[in-house]
């Protein structure tokens, strides 16, 4: 069982002592961009090795509700992903969904124990509220959530259509919170915060969201048949089937507009038009969602805006005007201005306005309200003008993303903890330095271009008939191949022992990406923002001055080899064969499985993270410890996500063969397998190899016999 009880969560400042570690990895752009600062590089790497359950563990460590983010995250990480500078960003959200579904997230149960007496109240059960509840519970506080609607989830429930986030997903996460001991009171709108304090709550987190649709401010907006997007989506999501007719106009260009349009289609509307006053370039909605909406038959009229609504319910006449783009405004987008005399009319049954939303804070809360009807808070401590009242989420920012809300929720939990424990709020600082800098053109040129695998989607014809999920989860192979596209930013090589460096220029010459360079003072530099972490220079440096930034990467082969040799010694199987096998791609799962003959067959696998990291010493060490045969199994030059890896693995193998020959061991005891090569099936090739090693072993045993 995954326990969330005792371990304080990451951003906490438990003892204020900075851990000394030899982890020199830099924070990659994806993690830096993620409001939750999730260890994206780590879990993507684990997925690339087929270690899905461990990937899920990493995801759960950094995200209270991974399954929700896996479906609806706006994925700022993908925007920041440097693979985008090469071809297309890594499909991180889809990978997370793969890990959540294949890693067994549904089976995970959470527990939390109560360690504090102070009761905390959360007003609103949206993502920020749920997240705060999760973390407050982990910190050991009794938590009660008050929700005005009939079901918990806030915008997750009433704002996001079910075809993007199925209700069951949200139910599972809510259920887990209840299991952790969070009390959720639905149908309980809070009218006064004083009442909560009277009830004995010591701290209140106000996270009521931004549900109030903004008005167009045009004539006829009050007509029946005009509804705002938030209200429309809420009604549909809560199970009402509003009758909207067949001809729908949606006004706006954000995600709510797209959601409303696609929802309208699913309710049976025949003609759905979105009116957006700017052009597609400025449209704030997620481009993939726009694309999907268009596929489903939504028509988008760009550079158009309504000016007047006339007529009665189901017989609305919508007057619109064409726009043109002028000078950029404060938001940096070009300001649309109406083109005189370009009015046109359309007959519409229902108009859905989705031009933005604002929070609606009850006056009795006595909270100071700022710009855009949001609650004014201290951005660091999330405190309001009232003692013991904290606020977060859309209520303080206006409409934002789910992941942003989850992050504020986590932050709020920390700050409430500080407040209740009478501690000066120590704002958590990132332990790692963020990787800065763009990839240079010469590096980009050498990085292998790998097509992004898009998850499959249900056909547009089928999906508009129902509210089922549009996007499907990856299959095993696509997920692993997609994860292999990660550039592993910030975990590359560094010259750890500058005093050892003889400036021999080996690294500069072996690097497939032209990363190392001589600076003006004649010192070799390996810029962290360019290194692709292939490990070739590390194994080639004649001074052993270069290491990989991640401690685990440095020790991995040594440790695995050590482990295998110990186990093999216990098993006493003869002849012993040791195989260094790449864990990336399908080796971790598919093809490798056929090589894994187990202890009985005497074949032991040392998992390696790319064959380029195997050093000649590793091979010799295997022979020293009693291996009769050693093989290396990995991708060929063509299949590896990186350059030159197979070449260098073979170079080192040749070096080892030379040593073997000088000792009087047959060089054929060492063989490389390219599991993707055409022709012989690797399993058959391995059988042949095993047979040959058996013969060598027998021959040497006889020789030994004769000698004695």
């Amino acid at each position, binding site marked *: 069982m995954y326990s969330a009880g005792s371990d304080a969560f990451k951003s906490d400042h438990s003892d204020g002592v900075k851990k000394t570690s030899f982890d020199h990895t830099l924070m990659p752009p994806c993690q830096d961009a993620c409001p939750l600062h999730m260890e994206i590089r780590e879990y993507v790497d684990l997925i690339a090795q087929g270690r899905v359950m461990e990937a899920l563990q990493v995801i759960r460590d950094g995200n209270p509700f991974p399954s929700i983010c896996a479906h609806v995250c706006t994925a700022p990480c993908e925007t920041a992903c440097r693979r985008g500078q090469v071809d297309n960003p890594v499909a991180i959200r889809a990978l997370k969904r793969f890990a959540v579904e294949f890693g067994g997230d549904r089976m995970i149960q959470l527990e939390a124990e109560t360690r504090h007496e102070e009761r905390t109240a959360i007003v609103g059960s949206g993502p920020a509220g749920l997240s705060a509840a999760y973390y407050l519970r982990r910190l050991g506080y009794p938590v009660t959530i008050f929700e005005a609607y009939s079901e918990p989830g806030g915008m997750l429930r009433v704002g996001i259509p079910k075809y993007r986030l199925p209700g069951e997903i949200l139910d599972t996460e809510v259920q887990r919170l209840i299991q952790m001991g969070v009390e959720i009171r639905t149908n309980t709108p809070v009218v006064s915060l004083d009442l909560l304090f009277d009830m004995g709550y010591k701290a209140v987190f106000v996270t009521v969201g931004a549900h109030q649709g903004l008005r167009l401010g045009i004539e006829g907006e009050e007509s029946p048949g005009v509804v705002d997007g938030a209200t429309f989506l809420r009604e549909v999501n809560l199970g009402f089937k509003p009758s909207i007719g067949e001809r729908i106009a949606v006004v706006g260009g954000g995600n709510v507009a797209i959601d409303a349009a696609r929802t309208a289609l699913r309710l049976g509307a025949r003609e759905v038009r979105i009116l957006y006053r700017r052009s597609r370039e400025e449209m704030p909605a997620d481009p993939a969602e726009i694309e999907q909406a268009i596929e489903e038959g939504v028509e988008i009229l760009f550079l158009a805006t309504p000016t007047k609504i006339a007529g009665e319910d189901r017989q609305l006449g919508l007057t619109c005007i064409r726009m043109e783009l002028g000078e950029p405004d404060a938001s940096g987008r070009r300001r649309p201005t109406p083109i005189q005399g370009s009015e046109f009319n359309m007959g519409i049954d229902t108009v859905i306005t989705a031009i933005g939303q604002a929070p609606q804070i009850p006056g009795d809360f006595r909270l100071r309200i700022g710009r855009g009807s949001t609650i004014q808070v201290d951005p660091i401590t999330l405190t309001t003008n009232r003692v013991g009242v904290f606020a977060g989420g859309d209520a303080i920012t206006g409409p934002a993303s789910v992941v942003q809300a989850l992050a504020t929720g986590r932050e709020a939990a920390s700050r409430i903890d500080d407040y209740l424990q009478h501690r000066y709020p120590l704002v958590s600082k990132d332990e790692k330095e963020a990787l800065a800098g763009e990839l240079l053109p010469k590096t980009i040129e050498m990085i292998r271009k790998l097509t992004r695998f898009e998850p499959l989607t249900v056909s547009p014809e089928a999906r508009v008939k129902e509210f089922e999920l549009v996007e499907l989860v990856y299959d095993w192979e696509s997920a692993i191949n997609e994860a292999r596209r990660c550039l592993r930013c910030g975990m590359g090589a560094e010259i750890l022992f500058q005093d050892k460096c003889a400036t021999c220029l080996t690294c500069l010459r*072996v690097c497939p990406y032209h990363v190392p360079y001589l600076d003006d003072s004649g010192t070799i530099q390996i810029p962290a923002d360019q290194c692709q972490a292939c490990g070739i220079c590390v194994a080639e440096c004649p*001074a052993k001055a270069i290491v990989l930034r991640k401690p685990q990467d440095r020790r991995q082969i040594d440790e695995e080899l050590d482990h295998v040799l110990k186990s093999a010694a216990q098993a006493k199987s003869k002849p012993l064969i040791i195989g260094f096998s790449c864990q990336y791609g399908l080796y971790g799962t598919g093809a490798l499985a056929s090589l894994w003959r187990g202890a009985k067959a005497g074949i032991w696998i040392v998992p390696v993270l790319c064959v380029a990291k195997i050093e000649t*010493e590793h091979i*010799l060490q295997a022979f020293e410890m*009693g291996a009769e045969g050693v093989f290396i199994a990995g991708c060929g030059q063509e299949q590896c996500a990186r350059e030159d890896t197979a070449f260098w693995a073979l170079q080192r193998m040749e070096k080892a063969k030379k*040593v073997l020959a000088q000792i009087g061991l047959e060089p054929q005891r060492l063989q490389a397998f390219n599991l993707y090569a055409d022709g012989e099936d690797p399993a058959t090739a391995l059988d042949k190899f095993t047979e040959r090693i058996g013969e060598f072993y027998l021959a040497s045993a006889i020789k030994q016999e004769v000698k004695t």
Partner: protein
Amino acid sequence: MIVAEQKPLEEIRRLIAPYEKVLILGCGTCMTVCGAGGEREGSLLHSALRVAQTRGGDEAHNFLEYTVKRQCDFEFLDMLEDRVGEVDAILSLGCGIGVQVIAERFPDIPVLPGVNTSFMGASKELGVWDERCAACGECRLDETGGICPITRCVKGILNGPCAGSKSGKCEVSSDIDCAWVLIYERLERLGQLEKMRRYYPPRNFRTIPRPRRIVSKADIDLGGNDG
């Protein structure tokens, strides 16, 4: 840079045979750069010797492994003081100079050469080294366009090319460029072809009086008044 090549494993095994505890000592300068005896080569040799020992050899050695920045200066060797006490021999992966300085620094411990010091040269590309200098002590590279006929001409002649030069290659091997053709081309490029037309008297081929020594410090007498 000094270029060397590690001795065959078999020879090294023969060298160390009489000694039980052997310190494999790498050198962090030229031997690292030419890939004959830096820290990596040292640990590789260490592994190879251990494989040899476990696979059928009768030997029973104990190996230590260490690399100093430079073996050709006492000060770098001083830090070995504590380690060498317990070893029976030092297998040096330094050049011939290193081996000798070690012998001088640790007079009671046998020192064995692990590499064959080959020449002074430059790396042509990764993993390929070419000889460039013979340390003849009378450099005339200004006259030959920066290309040394002593090391790069098979015969080392001072007035070339000879009749064995064919299409820019040496008659000895088509892999060897004719040094004198290279010299000609380079002088032509520099507009100094008149240097080709000169006759260079034979070098003084008498044996270089060895050992040579260079003293760069002035001899100062602190006893009296200067001038």
